[in-house]
């Protein structure tokens, strides 16, 4: 007798699973579960890395490496609902490593913080100015000391809570708050005046 077969759940249902459940499936070799995680957290990892460098290409390289390393070392992940802060930790670690290499590589060093302002014909002046200011802020952000930079990125780009940032950066919550405060104050000193006519 032919076996009775029926469809139960498919790829769409993976998207409804929590991070830890998807990681558990990934540990079991389920690439499709891991791919759902990658799609889910691309913005988090890529946004964090892009802001760290102020450079989209370097950020993309790092983001790709972070996901591949997570796959390669998925067995090390311990469930606990902390994948987001775990990913931010991995991203910062990888960013620091790439930044160290970049500092010893003149060509790459020149790429760090390079700002390309496009002023296409017909673009309203305000929009061009705002884009220019965004890039300036991001360039200065990339130049801040790592503890301040990481705390600001984790808060405003990764959208982590203070507790999650503390976990991701291995620092007490009080230190995280202090780094955010000092980082913002530094940026304010650079950009706080002269913006308005």
């Amino acid at each position, binding site marked *: 007798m032919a076996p009775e077969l029926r469809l139960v759940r498919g790829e769409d*249902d993976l998207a409804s699973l929590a991070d830890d459940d998807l990681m558990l499936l990934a540990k079991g070799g389920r690439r*499709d579960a891991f791919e759902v995680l990658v799609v889910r957290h691309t913005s988090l990892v890529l946004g964090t890395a892009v802001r760290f460098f102020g450079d989209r290409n370097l950020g993309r390289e790092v983001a790709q490496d972070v996901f591949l390393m997570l796959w390669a070392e998925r067995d090390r992940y311990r469930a606990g609902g902390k994948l987001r802060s775990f990913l931010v930790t991995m991203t910062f670690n990888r960013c620091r490593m790439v930044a160290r290499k970049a500092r010893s590589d003149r060509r790459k060093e020149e790429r760090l913080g390079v700002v390309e302002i496009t002023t296409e014909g017909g673009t309203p002046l305000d929009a061009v100015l705002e884009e220019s200011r965004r890039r300036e802020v991001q360039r200065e*952000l990339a130049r801040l000391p790592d503890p301040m930079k990481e705390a600001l990125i984790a808060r405003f780009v990764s959208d982590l809570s203070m507790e999650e940032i503390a976990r991701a950066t291995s620092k007490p919550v009080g230190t995280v708050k202090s780094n955010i405060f000092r980082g913002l104050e530094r940026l304010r000193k650079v950009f706080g005046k002269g913006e308005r006519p």
Partner: protein
Amino acid sequence: VTCARTSEVVERITGTIDPDRIADLDRHVEACPACRAAREELDAIASRIRPLPGEIDERELARDVATLIRLEKLPERPRRWPYAVAPLAVAAAIAIAFVRPPDDGFTARAGGEAEPDRWVSIEAHRAKKDGAGYENVGADIAASDALVFSVLNRPESPHRYAMILAFDERGEIYWYHPAYVDAAANPRSIEVPAARDPTTLADAVRHPLAPGWLCVVGLFSKRPLDVVSVEAVVKRTLAGRRITEIERLAIDDTGQHRILLRVEADR
């Protein structure tokens, strides 16, 4: 112009302020030029750090990552241990290699190939809803699903035999290949030729599965293994451990691929 409450404006911008203080601070900021200027400047900076809508969403990256994983092009891992620890690790590995397990026909996994599981894999399939062929199973299967397996034993693999079995949280063991229907028999691994493409095994096999986690293992070996000996290893492996913690069966000189599935009760 400065104000002692400017630091509270930072807390307001970063969302760390006590909610009970918000209304009072907002009233103060409206009346205080220093704090108002600070708020405008900090708001502008924060908004320029935050990604714009659509700026970061990059599906292409997700696709590239998936492709690289399939091609096994993984980045170099940073060294985790200082060099001074390496001799200790080697000594520990040698010590572990000399620990012998109870004699059940297998030896514990120690040393051997650097990546014994690299060249082998299995995939589980079930019939499509419309009956037009088969598809890979998703995260879950139904308790009564019949499964069809394909095996990939790459040309680089030293293995020529395979078994596919599953076990659940209750310790029940289910055999897919070889078939194990006669308790008096002790069937052995099936032959799987090395090939660049997967080979689909002919039989659709249904077991009365229990709801919960199901660990499916493709067990590849150089010589045929028998089900009774493998079951003994599975039972020993399961003793006192959660099924989700089991990465591998302790059988030396084998390549293994584990798939973790969630079995749902039939509706």
